[in-house]
């Protein structure tokens, strides 16, 4: 009897939180009516437009960026409840631009905190006495020719728990930032003026999974747009562009998912897939297939002889043009995605790209703009890529969430290797190798949180799966290693055999292909380097913490890396200072944690500013050291033979395109110099005789050797 009562009481206690549980405090409900992750694309009328890939130029695209009406309040209890109604009077509301973070626009407080949550830790609950709510409204008109089309609303990144309404109807709900939130709004649209209303709570259960070391900012922080698709449409496509065993010929396949938004429409049609070098009209692959139902698997595959391979050094791209036709052969949509032929694999305990063991000369990158906060722009991406390319950086870890879709296109185009990371960090709940933590409350170890984790991992892969620049998926950062991360690893390995998976939190357990520790000691590195039992490459996901005047002993890391083939580099923490431009009576400065009114809130001082470059991308002095140590040509001098030894560390680039100059200095003054060229093959070493004048014993001489690009590229001047 007494036993029964006890269990009844327990059941009652367990049920209590669920009674009247707030939706934003329930990890099991992390979305509603939200489209599953898929490749981001726009439908065009014809191939030439599709290949230009300018969303705005498509008649199937309608941007909802711009000025919205906006209401901000500190707590959910005060929020407007009928904001979604068409008749709602928002005339007294403020205005806000989209995309933006509302804290940057003057609504609420930007908070920088590293590990500690900005709310009391009690998952999945929040402090609803301070949990700001931003409500957005605007009107739009649907293009007239969209009448027979399906229309998808795309919110490229919403930071917060958001409910989205169109013309008074709920289109859906999302809790995941950084990955697109998409909703089928077709049934809600009408002719003339439409009203879209979005209410966003700053913090929600998903905030426990977004505990990244960054400014905590909210709102519609990336593009918002509608796009139209034919009622029978291409919905997703997995384009695989690999190489044969000799790394010579391309091995291409396309798996295309079709979708019908209307069962009344004829479900039969044709699909054509073409592969063409970028800028060329000569297809290296072209095939057309008919389908009679959407259940048909639509797979294309072919070998393509002698492809121009993709690597970070040789970012050769092809356009893959996908044309959908109805049963009569009339084109209903065209889209295009750039692909690059390359392989990624582990062989001989080494990470290989196109059969070559590469060195990862990487940095970690947060989305950060000193004026816009977390709003990405093309200008800033180009600035970053240019600076990275000019400083011998060849790899980026998208710490700690997917970047904006444009970033991947630019990295494909200009050549950077990416570790693409899922938007999961649960740091304050505990992390592997960072002391004891309670697995009974840590989301990574609790089944009710597992779907939310898996969703973030799947969204990462499904959106970015066609980008050649992505060579490695990462399951997350500082988030524990519960069962869900084994499941996530297995899911990716099943879904995508063309890439590797890394997970720092796995340490050397089975759910990581790469041993990717953060901040290992040199001692640990040496012992791994010397241990012949270790069969996984060692690539540090974070090292050389670039906070303030730092990056000492950087060469020492690389001495160890160069000592063993399976030591293959790492990602510096990190690329850019997360400073926010601010002004006081003394002038303009970059704010950090505790500034901007945050002094009495949880903050972690200037720990947000660990960049090799400052917040506006002005290089810090340490960047030249990184450039030097990350250089792709090594020199050594043999005083006896008067020979310069030149080692080409490039993986796919001969040194024939470079100009070499040596300069002999005597007591600091340039005495003589000369130029030469060599044709050293990738990974080869060459000796070069250098004729020096006679050196006098009492003077100090030194020889500088420079290697410079001969012909300018868009990113690197001559």
């Amino acid at each position, binding site marked *: 009897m007494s036993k029964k009562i006890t269990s009844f009481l327990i059941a009652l206690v367990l049920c209590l939180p669920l009674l009247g549980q707030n939706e934003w405090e329930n990890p099991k409900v992390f979305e509603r009516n939200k489209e599953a992750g898929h490749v981001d694309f726009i439908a065009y009328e014809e191939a030439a437009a599709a290949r230009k890939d300018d969303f705005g130029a498509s008649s199937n695209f309608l941007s909802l960026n711009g000025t919205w009406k906006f209401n901000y309040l500190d707590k959910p209890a005060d929020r407007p409840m009928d904001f979604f109604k068409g008749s709602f009077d928002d005339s007294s509301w403020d205005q806000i631009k989209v995309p933006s973070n509302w804290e940057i626009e003057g609504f609420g407080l930007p908070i920088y905190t590293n590990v500690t949550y900005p709310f009391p830790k009690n998952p999945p609950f929040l402090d609803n006495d301070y949990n700001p709510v931003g409500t957005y409204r605007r009107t739009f008109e649907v293009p007239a020719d969209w009448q027979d089309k399906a229309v998808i609303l795309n919110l490229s990144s919403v930071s917060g728990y958001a409910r989205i309404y169109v013309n008074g109807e709920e289109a859906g709900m999302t809790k995941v930032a950084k990955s697109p939130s998409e909703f089928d709004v077709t049934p809600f649209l009408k002719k003339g003026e439409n009203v879209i209303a979005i209410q966003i709570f700053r913090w929600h259960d998903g905030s426990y999974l977004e505990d990244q070391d960054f400014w905590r900012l909210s709102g519609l922080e990336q593009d918002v747009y509608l796009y139209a698709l034919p009622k029978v449409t291409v919905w997703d496509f997995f384009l695989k562009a690999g190489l044969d065993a000799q790394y010579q010929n391309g091995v291409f396949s396309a798996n295309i998912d079709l979708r019908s938004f209307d069962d009344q429409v004829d479900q039969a049609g044709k699909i054509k897939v073409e592969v063409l070098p970028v800028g060329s009209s000569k297809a290296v692959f072209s095939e057309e297939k008919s389908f009679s139902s959407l259940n048909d698997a639509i797979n294309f595959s072919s070998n393509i002889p002698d492809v121009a391979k993709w690597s970070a050094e040789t970012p050769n791209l092809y356009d893959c043009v996908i044309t959908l036709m109805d049963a009569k052969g009339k084109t209903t949509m065209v889209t295009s995605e750039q692909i690059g032929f390359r392989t990624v694999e582990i062989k001989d305990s080494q990470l290989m790209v196109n059969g070559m063991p590469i060195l990862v000369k990487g940095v970690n990158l947060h989305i950060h703009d000193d004026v816009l906060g977390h709003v990405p722009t093309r200008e800033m991406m180009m600035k970053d890529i240019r600076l990275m390319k000019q400083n011998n950086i060849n790899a980026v870890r998208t710490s700690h969430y997917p970047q904006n879709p444009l970033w991947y296109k630019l990295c494909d185009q200009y050549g950077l290797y990416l570790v693409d990371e899922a938007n999961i960090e649960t740091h304050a709940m505990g992390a592997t190798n960072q002391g004891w933590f309670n697995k009974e409350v840590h989301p990574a170890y609790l089944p009710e949180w597992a779907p939310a984790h898996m969703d973030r991992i799947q969204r990462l892969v499904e959106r970015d799966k066609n980008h050649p620049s992505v060579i490695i998926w990462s399951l997350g950062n500082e988030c524990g290693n519960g069962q869900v991360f084994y499941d996530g690893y297995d899911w990716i390995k099943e879904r995508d055999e063309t890439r590797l998976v890394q997970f720092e939190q796995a340490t050397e357990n089975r759910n990581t292909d790469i041993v990717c520790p953060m901040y290992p000691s040199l001692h640990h590195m040496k012992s791994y380097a010397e241990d012949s039992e270790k069969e996984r490459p060692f690539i540090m996901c974070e090292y*050389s913490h670039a906070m*303030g005047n730092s990056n000492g002993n950087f060469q020492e890391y690389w001495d160890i890396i160069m000592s063993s083939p399976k030591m293959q580099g790492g990602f510096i923490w990190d690329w850019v200072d997360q400073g926010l431009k601010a002004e006081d009576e003394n002038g303009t400065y970059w704010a950090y944690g505790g500034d901007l009114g945050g002094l009495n809130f949880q903050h972690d001082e200037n720990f947000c500013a660990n960049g090799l470059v400052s917040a506006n991308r002005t290089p810090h002095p340490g960047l030249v050291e990184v450039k030097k140590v990350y250089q792709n040509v090594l020199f050594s001098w043999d005083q006896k033979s008067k020979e310069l030894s030149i080692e080409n560390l490039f993986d796919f680039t001969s040194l024939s395109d470079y100009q070499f100059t040596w300069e002999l200095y005597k007591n600091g003054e340039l005495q003589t110099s000369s130029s030469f060229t060599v044709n050293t093959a990738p990974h080869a070493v060459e000796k070069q005789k250098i004729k020096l004048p006679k050196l006098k014993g009492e003077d100090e001489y030194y020889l500088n050797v420079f290697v410079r690009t001969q012909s300018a590229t868009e990113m690197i001047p001559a």
Partner: protein
Amino acid sequence: MLQEADFALSQNSGELSIDEEDEKIQFQSGDISGEFNKKRGSFSYYKKGDTRIGRLPEPYFWRAPTDNDFGNHMPSNLGVWRTAHVNKSLEEVVVGEQSKEGLPITVKYMLKDIGVPYTLAYLIRNDGSIQVTSSIDMSGKTLPELPRFGMRMTLPGQFDQVSYYGRGPEENYSDRKTASFLGIWEHKASEQKMPYIRPQEYGNHTDTRWVKLFNESEESLVITGLQPFDFSALNIRAEDMDPGLTKKQQHPTDLSYSNDITLHIDLLQRGLGGDTSWGAYPHRPYRLHDEKYSYSFVITIESDKK
């Protein structure tokens, strides 16, 4: 580098005249002259023509904590060095015999806060230049590592134009210098602004053979090492960038740059580290753990053009 230079400086010719009167030692060689005060144990002035230097370098051991320094608790653990140079007692001044090298003067101090003897051995050389040898002996003491072992002096802002033979042009440190090549580099002290989001140590140059600071009449104060040395020449002092034991929400805009130039001449400065910013120390080869340090440099004023 093909060959290490021999840093022993050749002794220049010149007639050194000495005039000793009470506590003052006046000296002259050509148009260089100066005065040493035996009672104070220091030079009262040093000049060539119209170019006059008030005080010669004085000991200094601290640096404005970097973020990594805060991470490894340098501000408290090494804090004894923040002011160790201040409270020093003059123990002894020994004026030696004038020899063919010049006139030696040895000044002995006690750094009273830490009970450590510190010696400045001067040699007023025949050409009017002054060789300075700074030595510390911490034998038998339990002291934390030194942030830097060096000296500093203040120069009027007109010595803005800096030329040096050492590693540059970017600032560099003992553990971050492979990209900074040896060469003769130039910059203006007034253009060296603190480049980090939070004020901290900056602007150092390692492996310096000589540094010259030119004034408007194109005369220069010249420091030549008897071994390579570190220098920085900035319009700001470490004290002005040091928030103390904790960070204080400071920004570059909170710094007030002076017109004066603070010239550091160091044997060594602690490396930067960077393995982490939450506890990792600079690596052992880049820390100052020895019991004794000593180094020498020669100061003079030159009027030859750059």
